[in-house]
């Protein structure tokens, strides 16, 4: 589904991704872990077409990122740190606008269902600027999946959410897994990573340091391998 070949990303004179190669098949849920500043968010941004690769190939669903960006964009859902929502708009207005931007038709029902799913029905017509961080994040999640993406890119989606909201998010991801959606989750939360992911990629210093399958929500294995890769030389960053 996602094929990355020797991806290098420089910003100015700084090399942030130093040759990343990754092959993700359809339906996988991949957790991306690594210390701060490792380049996880940058990797996600490149896949999300937000940053152009300096060199290397990125192919998504057989389409070249450079040649068919528009087609790829309509398959991607992206949830970064920022909410990407308009403050003056209500959840309904935000979702309505983004459904237009994704050229969707007959969306009324879908918008209301999404707002229900993230548990904010009562706030459907309140402006987002009056929301708490967690409520905003819930709407942001709804925004990122408004167009039924085939690939979902989540950058630290759990931060700022309460237990109930984490449950909602995990539910959303689980539902997508059933539908064979490919999901990439950048996170620092081992527990959640072990819970939802079936493959872990550890990024360190702009390179992929480890890449393994995770079965049975084995958090011990995850911790052990993370420590051996990252904390073995903790002064690397």
């Amino acid at each position, binding site marked *: 589904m996602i094929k990355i070949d020797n991806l290098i990303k*420089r*910003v*100015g*004179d*700084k090399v942030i991704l130093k040759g990343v190669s990754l092959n993700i098949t359809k339906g996988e849920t991949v957790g991306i872990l690594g210390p701060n500043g490792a380049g996880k968010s940058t990797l996600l941004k490149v896949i999300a077409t937000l940053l*152009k*690769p*300096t*060199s290397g190939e990125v192919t998504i669903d057989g389409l070249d990122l*450079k040649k068919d960006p528009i087609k790829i964009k309509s398959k991607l859902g992206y949830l970064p740190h920022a909410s990407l929502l308009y403050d003056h708009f209500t959840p309904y207005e935000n979702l309505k606008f983004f459904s237009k931007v994704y050229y969707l038709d007959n969306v009324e029902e879908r918008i209301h269902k999404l707002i229900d799913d993230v548990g904010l029905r009562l706030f459907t017509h309140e402006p987002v600027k009056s929301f708490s961080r967690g409520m905003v994040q819930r709407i942001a999640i709804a925004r990122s999946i408004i167009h039924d993406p085939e690939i979902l890119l989540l950058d630290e989606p759990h931060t700022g959410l309460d237990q109930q909201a984490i449950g909602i998010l995990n539910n959303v991801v689980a539902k997508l897994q059933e539908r064979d959606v490919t999901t990439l989750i950048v996170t620092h939360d081992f527990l959640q990573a072990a819970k939802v992911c079936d493959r872990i990629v550890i990024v360190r210093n702009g390179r992929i340091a480890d890449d393994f399958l995770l079965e049975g929500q084995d958090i011990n294995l995850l911790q052990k391998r993370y420590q051996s890769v990252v904390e073995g030389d903790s*002064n*690397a960053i």
Partner: protein
Amino acid sequence: MKKYQDIELDYAKGVQPVSTIHKLLTYTTAILFIVLVYMAFIYSPVEKTMGPVQKIFYAHVPSAWIAGVAFLGVFILSIAFLITRKRIYDLYAGISAEIGVVFTTIVLTTGPIWGRSSWNSWWSWEPRLTTTLILWFIYLAYVMIRHMDSPWDKRARLAAVFGIIGFLDVPIVFFAIRWWNTKMHPIVFGEGKDQSGGGLEPEMLATLFVGLGAFTLLYIVLLQKGVMIEKAKIAVQAYKEKLQDKLVR
């Protein structure tokens, strides 16, 4: 396909020595300028109506020419950069714009001195001079964009875009100003200031050509020099970072 190919890749070996061609060009330019001074002040005759002030002509016209060449250079190099994303084009475009601004400034100072003696007022809203003024502002804006506080690739991209729009704008500006000028002041000073009275004498023409040659060479020398300095800066920066990287590890 490689994008944003960086200078430091071919400069990994460190700062390269100055090439012989560059040295040769520098000496030739110096000699040509001495010749130009001789021709302007001794060889060519003093103009009858304007007197010695007319000598400024030999600096004014070549400067305007170089400004034009420099900005055309920015335009072409900007397109080249956007297509290939090679940093070298961006460096040349930046230096070319800076040289252009300097020579435009010369045009804008020599112009009024000339104008003072031939039209008895420092500034006239004469189309060529006014267009030069707008040009000066456009490329000053270009230089401002280049000094934006962001990574070089972004700066280069935005500057290139502005370099293209700015250059496309210049002919329209000139046309608008010329038109505006003739509508505002129906009887202007003949066709413009460059026809100095009744045509040029052959000695003056020869001096002018030497001036054009000397200034063109100067432009090339300055361009090379500027790019060399920029490259050296980048190489030093890259070296510094490599060192830091090693120390951290």
